[in-house]
């Protein structure tokens, strides 16, 4: 499995044309990671999400970029995916948009068009992220995909875990009682303290993976609070 420790944003490219990657890199002034086979791009791992993903529809006789767009969309929820195609048929374009791509560009690459479309899609992506996400401290909760992201990592949450974390974030550092958390997460259904504790544990684990400064503190008899960890000097 290919793993890259890229610190900065980059382009992720799936195309068997070896000229596409250097041309896009030079035109957009961004580094790129390029693959020519679908299995390679699906095995790719990096610390940071790409700035944008370019996918060629026509790869080999048996492989199409269309096959991996749903997986890429699922993994990179807010990253623009642009399809590269020389196909003149509307069918393949509408199919690629239906599977999760945001836009398409035709070959031969017109770099003015690429730049314009990418900028537009990056703007859309920013708006989408803002509408879909809640930021607190050094983490961002992406509601649509139930993902907590921070420190270059991401953690998946269950629907209940997400509701609990959202309630704690919205409380902005104040205590949320057990009863209120249960009511918000389970929609008023009666549940045991043990069930709540299990879900709080799940959220704590997600925070441990993604945050350097946040923690959930239990206040016995009162409830829970999401707060900034005391620094070492404060503890001393």
């Amino acid at each position, binding site marked *: 499995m290919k793993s890259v420790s890229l610190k900065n944003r980059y382009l992720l490219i799936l195309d068997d*044309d070896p*000229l596409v990657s250097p*041309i896009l890199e*030079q*035109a957009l002034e961004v580094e790129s990671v390029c693959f020519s086979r679908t299995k390679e791009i699906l095995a790719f791992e990096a610390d940071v999400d790409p700035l944008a993903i370019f996918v060629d529809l*026509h790869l080999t006789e048996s492989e199409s970029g269309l096959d991996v767009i749903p997986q890429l969309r699922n993994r990179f929820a807010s990253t623009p995916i642009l399809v590269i195609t*020389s196909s003149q048929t509307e069918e393949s374009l509408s199919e690629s948009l239906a599977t999760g791509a945001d836009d398409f560009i035709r*070959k031969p*690459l017109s770099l003015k068009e690429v730049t314009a479309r990418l900028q537009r899609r990056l703007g859309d992506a920013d708006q989408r992220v803002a509408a879909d996400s809640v930021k607190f401290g050094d983490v961002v909760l992406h509601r649509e995909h139930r993902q907590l992201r921070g420190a270059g990592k991401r953690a998946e949450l269950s629907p209940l875990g997400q509701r609990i974390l959202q309630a704690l974030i919205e409380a902005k550092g104040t205590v949320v009682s057990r009863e209120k958390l249960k009511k918000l997460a389970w929609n008023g259904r009666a549940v045991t303290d043990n069930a709540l504790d299990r879900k709080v544990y799940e959220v704590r684990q997600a925070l441990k993976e993604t945050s350097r400064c946040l923690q959930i503190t239990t206040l016995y008899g009162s409830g829970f609070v999401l707060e900034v960890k005391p620094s070492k000097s404060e503890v001393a």
Partner: protein
Amino acid sequence: MSRATAKKWEEKLLDDEKIHYLLELGKTKPHFMPQLVEAFAKCSVEIFKELKGRRTEPETIFHLGHKLKGMSSNIGAQKLERLAAEIENAGKDGKLYDIDALIEEAEIAFFQTRELLTLK
């Protein structure tokens, strides 16, 4: 017809506008254009080798023609792009009776294009 007139009517190998654009794009990076030409040449040689070896397989001919066409268009090799499109269509339609001549003509265009590009 004089030699000059014949040359005037000869199909141009390169798309000047595209080449100018790529040269402009790469002017901050001296290795940009030579790297593009090298990648184009290396990949084209592989494509021609495979085209010759699998000349009876329409689907492969279609795929290889398509790949050559896309790459040629990206580097402004306009004559090769046209010939690659013909190879692609021959594969798509399953009409391979003239494929040998077409591959040969495309390969000659490739050699000439590569020579011109290395001078850029």
